C-alpha cells in the first residue's frame, strides 16, 4: 500500500524552496535515507521548481506549485503540479557536455534539467487541466548507494502513462 509522505504547496517566491528542503531533510533522516539521497531528492525538486518560478510565470504572485511525495515499497514517487506556462522538460535540449563550456552554442540554462533527469530513475510529463504534471521516480533500494546515471529514453519526450490518479 503506497504511503503518502508529503504534500507541499508553494505560493510564494524562492524562500519556499528552502522550507521544502528542510521538511524533506527531516523526513529523510527519520526514514534513515542517506544524506546523499536526501541531497539528490532535494536537488531534483529544486531544479524543476526553480525553473518553473524563473521562467514559467509572466505575472508574479499568481502561481501555485504542488509537490507530492509517495513511497510505494522502495519506490519514491514525486509529483509536481503547477499552473505555469506549458513546459515539457523532457523536450529540453541536453547541455553540450562533449564541448568545453566556452565552445557551447546553447546556454547553460539546460543544466538544471539535465541534473534532475540524471538523478531520477524515471521522469514522465503531461499537461492536463491547465497544469504541468511532472512525475519523478527514484528506486531507493538501489539508491542506498545512490548510483546516478542518465534516465533511459533521455530527451525522447514525455509519456502519457498514468498511475497517479
Amino acid at each position: 500500500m503506497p504511503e503518502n509522505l508529503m504534500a507541499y504547496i508553494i505560493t510564494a517566491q524562492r524562500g519556499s524552496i528552502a522550507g521544502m528542503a528542510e521538511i524533506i531533510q527531516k523526513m529523510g533522516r527519520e526514514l534513515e535515507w542517506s544524506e546523499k539521497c536526501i541531497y539528490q531528492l532535494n536537488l531534483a525538486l529544486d531544479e524543476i521548481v526553480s525553473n518553473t518560478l524563473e521562467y514559467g510565470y509572466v505575472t508574479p504572485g499568481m502561481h501555485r506549485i504542488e509537490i507530492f511525495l509517495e513511497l510505494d515499497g522502495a519506490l519514491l514517487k514525486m509529483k509536481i503540479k503547477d499552473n505555469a506556462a506549458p513546459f515539457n522538460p523532457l523536450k529540453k535540449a541536453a547541455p553540450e557536455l562533449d564541448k568545453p563550456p566556452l565552445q557551447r552554442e546553447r546556454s547553460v540554462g539546460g543544466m538544471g534539467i539535465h541534473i534532475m533527469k540524471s538523478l531520477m530513475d524515471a521522469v514522465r510529463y503531461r499537461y492536463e487541466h491547465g497544469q504541468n504534471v511532472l512525475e519523478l521516480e527514484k528506486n531507493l533500494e538501489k539508491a542506498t548507494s545512490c548510483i546516478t546515471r542518465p534516465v533511459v529514453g533521455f530527451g525522447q519526450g514525455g509519456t502519457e502513462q498514468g498511475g497517479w490518479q
Partner: protein
Amino acid sequence: MNLEQTTRDGVVVFSVKGRLDGSTAGEFEQSVLAALENGTTKIIFDCNGLDYINSTGLRVLVMAYQRLHGREGRIAVCSLKDYIQEIFTISGYDQIFALHQDCSEALRRLRVDG
C-alpha cells in the same frame, strides 16, 4: 550561506558554507565578480562547509572560469563532499575545474604552477 574571502600569496580563497542555491547565488556572484574586477587571476573555492549546491550556484563557478580563461587565470575547487562532486561529474564540470580533496594541495599547485 556563509562566505569568507581570504588572500594567500596572491590566491583568493572563497570558503563557502551552507547552501549555495537560487536565494544565495546572487550574493556569492557579487563577491566573486568584485574579486575578478580587482584583477584576481587565481581563485580557490574551498567547499569544506558546502552542504548544498544547485545549477544556479554552479553557474557562478562557471562564470568565474569563463572570466579567468580569457586572462590565463587559474581556478581550483577543493574539499567537495562526495555527493556534491558527483554533480560536478554529471554536469561535466569536473572536466574544467581542477578538483582537489585537500585545499592545501590546491593552494600549493596554484602557487607552484604560476
